[in-house]
């Protein structure tokens, strides 16, 4: 059986229509959701748990005081330095998990959270290939200021 006959015999028209509709529905729904996504996120970020918020405020204040550079506590500064040492054992573009691993085996405390801190502070930045680089200037700025703070 050929031609239009074959198409209608196999219920082709409705299959095609249904198919096209579903594909559009799916992608339209998705594009709608993600177009709302960042608003939702902003909304959620209005309710961080108290501690976090306090920390944030403090950080922000420090931030302002330092002209956009986050302030580290002595301990944070300390581990920033330790991480620097570890990072130097690796290539300029290093793997974050390996750094984490090194931090763990060298027994730095709270390796995960500290690493996170460095990431948030922008001292460690992702490159285009899933590897990471160390922003030396920013690092110096922060660590020195932290020194002065003391």
């Amino acid at each position, binding site marked *: 059986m050929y031609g239009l006959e*074959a*198409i209608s015999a196999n219920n*082709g028209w409705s299959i*095609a229509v249904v*198919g096209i509709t579903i594909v559009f529905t799916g992608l339209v729904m998705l594009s709608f959701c*993600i177009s709302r*996504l960042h608003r939702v996120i902003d909304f959620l970020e209005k309710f961080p748990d108290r501690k976090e918020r306090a920390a944030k405020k403090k950080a922000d204040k420090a931030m302002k005081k330092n002209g956009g550079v986050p302030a580290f506590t002595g301990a944070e500064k300390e581990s920033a330095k330790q991480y620097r040492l570890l990072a130097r054992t690796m290539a300029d573009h290093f793997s*974050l*998990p390996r750094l984490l691993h090194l931090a763990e085996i060298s027994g730095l405390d709270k390796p995960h959270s500290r690493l996170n801190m460095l990431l948030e502070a922008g001292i460690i930045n992702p490159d285009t290939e899933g590897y990471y680089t160390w922003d030396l200037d920013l690092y110096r700025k922060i660590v020195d200021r932290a020194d002065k703070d003391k």
Partner: protein
Amino acid sequence: MENLFFEFFQNTGFFLCDYRNIVMILIGIIFIYLGIAKHYEPLLLVPIGFGMLIGNIPIFHGLGLGIYEDNSVLHYLYFGVTSGIYPPLVFLGIGAMTDFSTLLARPVLMILGAAAQTGIFLTFLGALALGFEPNQASAIGIIGGADGPTAIFLTAKLAPALIGPIAVAAYSYMALVPVIQPPIMKLLTSRKERLIRMEEPREVSKREKMIFPIIAFLLCCFLAPAALPLLGMLCFGNLLKEAVVTERLAHTARNAIIDTATILLGMTVGASTQGDVFLTGQSVGIFVLGAFSFCIATACGLIFAKIMNLFLKTKINPLLGAAGVSAVPDSARVVQMVGQEEDPTNFLLMHAMAPNVSGVIGSAIAAGVLWSLMV
């Protein structure tokens, strides 16, 4: 001893050889040539091409050499294709190397990825009209998805006998995207349209990137559960990538895993094109319909983009519509090329990636729909 010599000679390729093997071997060599010399999708054409050589060495049966003999090494490796295991693994890797930022920055471009999939269903109708069975017609239509793994996955589920021709058609046309698309793009767009510049996409937060694969997966698979194996792995891989802490898994997914799957997938798919089963009228029909579906898909994408411009206040460059067919990243690069021909300073690639990747999601959904409607 003479007998033994003669007997052995009767089992050599020189004796068993059939003109169809020669034809296929030549096609295989052309594939390899296009991959290496012309840089058309080398990662796919070279393995498939060499696979064609492997599959078309004239062999005597009974020893367990042929890909269709069920104790042969090739058969074991081919199982990953027939069972549909390789394509999801490839998607895992693709997810682990794809960056959806541009999509997140301008979600509306995603709809272009849907438009281009219309080609799939029009081709499906065409295939029915040419007398193919509905399941075969679906597998043929998906060629227009311009997405190798999706095409192979659906074909393995609906019409295993056609894996060879459909995979070869899909990959050939994907490789030929730089040849097929430009004329259509120029035909359907005015110079003025091709000159449209896109505004810089907004900065996308890490949080958005992490949440996207989860939402995309849940939404699409609730709508089309049959897209699960492909979309599930794609989004899983992308989550591994975006969730910094699982970087090492993402790294393995986008290197060892996808490369291994690609090597075995390409080689065995190529080997499945044995002359006698491949060089048939059906295959010719499939190639014709495949070309048709690529052109239609491109056209649909372009036209839909022009329609969208009627409603959008900040116009989009309709060339982006052509990137909706997926064929990542070639069709996006073609958009960049054609755009730059008009205005060398107009930088469309980044924007073209949005419909490009959403085209991947789109064809996975389409595959899911067709699969579930065929059973």
